[in-house]
């Protein structure tokens, strides 16, 4: 996988907020304001980064969940998306790992997907109550 190292451990950036939805999950990057939808298998992979995982560990987990060789491209695409959009960051092997719950099963394995919403949430808004784009005043 381009730009990420096989044995390096990664975690979600602290300002990436995860919410479970419809068997999968939504990731919101508070910095970029983009949000991402993961299908259940996508979340089965990505949830490993809540506590910290290497790419090698992620691939092992995928195999345990039922991934076939033909799924390699989809898995790499997901990992690349997480890396390229800086949703995950390297973590020091000697610390920084978070004591997170064990990964939970998310149902039957299907090719994992991650979909970034075309438009981010607004960075500048009208008021603390109104998230609309401010009008020109």
């Amino acid at each position, binding site marked *: 996988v381009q730009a990420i190292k096989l044995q390096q451990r990664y975690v979600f950036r602290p300002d990436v907020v995860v919410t479970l939805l419809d068997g999968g999950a939504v990731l919101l990057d508070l910095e970029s304001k983009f949000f991402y939808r993961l299908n259940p298998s996508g979340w089965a992979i990505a949830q490993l980064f809540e506590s910290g995982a290497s790419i090698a560990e992620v691939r092992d987990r995928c195999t345990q969940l039922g991934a076939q060789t033909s799924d390699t491209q989809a898995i790499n695409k997901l990992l690349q998306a997480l890396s390229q959009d800086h949703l995950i960051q390297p973590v020091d092997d000697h610390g920084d790992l978070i004591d997170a719950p064990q990964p939970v099963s998310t149902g039957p394995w299907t090719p994992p997907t991650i979909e970034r919403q075309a438009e981010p949430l607004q960075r500048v808004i009208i*008021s603390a109550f109104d998230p*609309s784009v*401010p009008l020109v*005043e």
Partner: protein
Amino acid sequence: MSAGVRITRDGVVAHTFHCGPLELTLHAPNSGLYDKVAETLYLYDFPWDSPYRPLDIWAQTSNVLEPPARGDFLRCARMLVDKTAQGLRATTISGARAIGTLEDTGERWDIFVPDSLVEEGRLEEIEDILSLVLTTGWRRGGWTPIHAAAVVKDGTCVIFCASTGGGKTTMTAAFVRRGWQVLGDDKLLLRVQEREPQVAALLHTFNLHPQTRDWFPEVGDLEQLPRYSVWTEKRKVSISSIWSHAPVHRARPSVLVSLRRDNLDVLIRPLEQPDVFATLLRQTVIPNDPVTARQIIADVAGAAEKTRGLQVDVPADAYRDPRILDALEEAIRRNP
């Protein structure tokens, strides 16, 4: 103004308002500043049916210049907000500022406004600060503010979502005329408890454009009323003064309608659940703070999970045509 105003020996007025789940006591000199803050808070002032969280606002004039906030918590058009060790700090483009001290049992906000803003009556930025004060208090009380309208009838509660100027109020009024009750045309609170979403009313007013009379004559000549803000033509109008059956305080949302103005045709189509989530998420303000954001997104996701979605494109003049509203009501009531 409701009862309970106290004036202390140093001329500070203290008055208690009930704004959603907040019991808010305003302390301010007896002046134009007090009037402006009280005027805004009064719009939200009606009884709530569960325990209140205490919140104190101390407002005063001050010409001390402070460096502007960076906006690392929230960036609004006229206000930036930072997170601090004690809570939050906000500054506005004209020099007003606010310091929020947030504690487990309640909050205290100190608001400082330059004399010049009070003397010139340029107090819109106070509304921005109060918006921050209230939304922060509501979230800390377990509710997520959403910028949406909601109507309810026979157990079906519809949330109308649209951006500012997107037709929420007009569609809400059109439904109210057809016997629906209303929780609000613009501002609501949302929470999910035991996997059940709930929306609550916050205001007892509509923001109506004078043009609304073209469709709904009973609203009368709104041009006679003062504009509530320099930024809009709309007027604040008491809901019950026009439609006495209409106000209702709580409901369980069952349908979300994403409204879009279209100049040509009416189009009604179902929304997938992830799109319901995305639509509702875009109606909420999400500060750059993971803890706060997590609660908001959990509420939105919990509501989206239990809510059926419709995308509705309506021509600008749709409200004149009962067939369009019939079709929309039918789509809302149809089982998924």
